[in-house]
């Protein structure tokens, strides 16, 4: 509801909207103590290494916001190990964190950590990935993108760019990952009403640029008639561009490429004309997360789900929005 202005990263697109229809979560309902953000110890549990732009921007946003609001930030990184994330969260509580922000490694499996937080009356805001536990009881709320929606928006871009006909190759994310599942579902639902678009291949590129490139190289050989690529993250999309160029195709023209994330590399390609569209997955959770914790502290009702607004880049706006990309 409250559009936040300017994060350290420049003009932010992080407007939030309340999506949950049901009753929200107020402090009175949980009986948690009131905590003043200024000087409070806030724990942040990051799920994986900051080795990709999304994670880097996410962590930076949280750090910046904590500094801005005078909170003391404790930070852990689970290094992609679910069990480690659980002990990370427990140790954050143990080290005196009174408020928690968690970027879950996975939608499932964090229950023991939430239980520990509950026992110590520590509110938990989860960001970027929705968990399967109960909001308000197990955790306070979820702030993040709607991955299915991202897939749908990618589909719309695709329909627009191809004019509704074409053969699509999907570069899937890592197997077993909810993000992969949702972005695939959204995209397929999105193109369902467009009979001219058919998916001729879907293969995993594991969210990795070089794997995306390798898979694309194979697919373009066996299906030279591919006219569109949907990559479930920018890295694979960028890999696909390299592969297509090597195969003598003109990405962005002969073969339309749409992906999700909004990294600088992908948007730059869009500016250069070798890309078709990028649906943003906004990593700048800091302001929203701290706002939410502050409101909760004040006793306001917090919605169960807060959807961060994702921007969209296409050939018309890429150049002017390039600075927004991360």
């Amino acid at each position: 509801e409250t559009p936040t202005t300017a994060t350290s990263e420049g003009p932010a697109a992080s407007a939030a909207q309340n999506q949950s229809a049901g009753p929200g979560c107020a402090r009175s309902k949980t009986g948690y103590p009131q905590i003043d953000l200024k000087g409070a110890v806030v724990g942040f549990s990051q799920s994986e290494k900051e080795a990709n732009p999304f994670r880097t921007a996410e962590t930076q946003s949280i750090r910046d916001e904590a500094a801005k609001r005078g909170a003391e930030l404790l930070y852990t990184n689970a290094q992609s190990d679910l069990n480690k994330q659980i002990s990370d969260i427990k140790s954050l509580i143990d080290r005196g964190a009174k408020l928690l922000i968690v970027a879950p490694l996975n939608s499932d499996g964090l229950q023991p950590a939430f239980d520990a937080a509950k026992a110590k009356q520590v509110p938990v805001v989860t960001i970027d990935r929705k968990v399967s536990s109960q909001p308000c009881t197990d955790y306070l709320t979820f702030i993040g993108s709607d991955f299915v929606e991202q897939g749908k928006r990618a589909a719309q871009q695709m329909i627009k760019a191809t004019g509704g006909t074409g053969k699509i190759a999907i570069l899937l994310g890592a197997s077993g990952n909810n993000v992969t599942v949702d972005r695939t579902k959204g995209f397929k639902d999105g193109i369902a009403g467009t009979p001219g678009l058919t998916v001729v291949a879907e293969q995993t590129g594991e969210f990795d640029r070089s794997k995306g490139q390798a898979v694309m190289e194979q697919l373009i050989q066996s299906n030279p008639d591919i006219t569109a690529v949907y990559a479930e993250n920018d890295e694979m999309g960028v890999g696909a561009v390299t592969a297509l160029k090597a195969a003598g195709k003109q990405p962005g023209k002969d073969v339309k490429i749409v992906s999700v994330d909004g990294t600088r590399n992908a948007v730059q390609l869009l500016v250069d004309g070798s890309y078709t569209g990028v649906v943003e997955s906004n990593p700048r959770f800091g302001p929203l997360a701290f706002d939410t914790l502050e409101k909760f502290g004040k006793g306001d009702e917090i919605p169960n789900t807060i959807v961060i607004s994702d921007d969209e880049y296409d050939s018309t706006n890429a150049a002017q929005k390039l600075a927004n990309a991360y």
Partner: protein
Amino acid sequence: MTQTTQAPTKTAVGSAAARTRWLQDNGVYVAVGVLLLFNALFTANFLTLGNFTTQLVQAAPVLIVALGMALVIGTEGVDLSVGAVMALAAAIIPLYLGAGPLVAITMALVVGLLAGAFNGFLVARVGIQPIVATLALLVGGRGLALVIADGQLVQLHDETFLALGTGDVAGIPVSVLIAGLLALVIAGLTNRTTFGRQLVAIGGNRKAATLAGLPVNRVLIGVYAITGVLAAIAGVLATSRLAASDPADMGLLMELSAITAVVVGGTPLTGGKVRVLGTVFGVILMQLVRATLIKHNLPDSIAQMIQAAIIIAAVYVARERR
């Protein structure tokens, strides 16, 4: 408690033995042949020059790493750190690319050499078992690469450097050419030089090799150093092909791909034997398997299970009989 053993008839045993022996030595070539035939028949657009080039280009970095791995395995060792060394090489490139591609590549190779020599030192001089010695670098090496690169993927724009990944000489991609040359060099090294023969002797019986006055430590350190350099070369080539330095993902799980290719190619993990041509075909076989699975658009689950089955089948045929 009287037992009587009656032997089987002899003639059947003899010819069957000869057949399995032949298969054991040539299984990997047969498998590559079979897979090529399958694809020629059932895969669309398989028999094109472009497709074969793609397969070779993709296989080149794996082959380069596998060549080193074959040497290490020949000494009864193993090098789990090759993927991390590739990542280190990738992280080094952008740091020095400003000074020209040659400097950057040299620095990457030097880092590979140092990493390899360090592994060799741990194995030869300190006496730590290869798996553990190189595991330390597997764990720490990629972290170090990320520290060097500040965790960032860096887009590369140096045309000369990128030509390594995209250029060709007389129609043959540069990386394939380099991989081919290195295969020849390693084959010569193992079969024709003192170093190569000493290497397999050490793998066959280290104690005896020591007592025979062989320079065991020198050879071991040399082998790991060569492997480090080869991994760095692979890292450089893969980086230039990707047009980006990506230490987070560069060479991830490369150690397992390389070991699989080497073993599928008929080099036993027990050491004392190195098959270079077999390794080349082992790499090609695994590449073709991957390509086939992707081209037929099989889901990841089935693809993984089929890969498992093919690895088992190939190694089963090539296994040493007791």
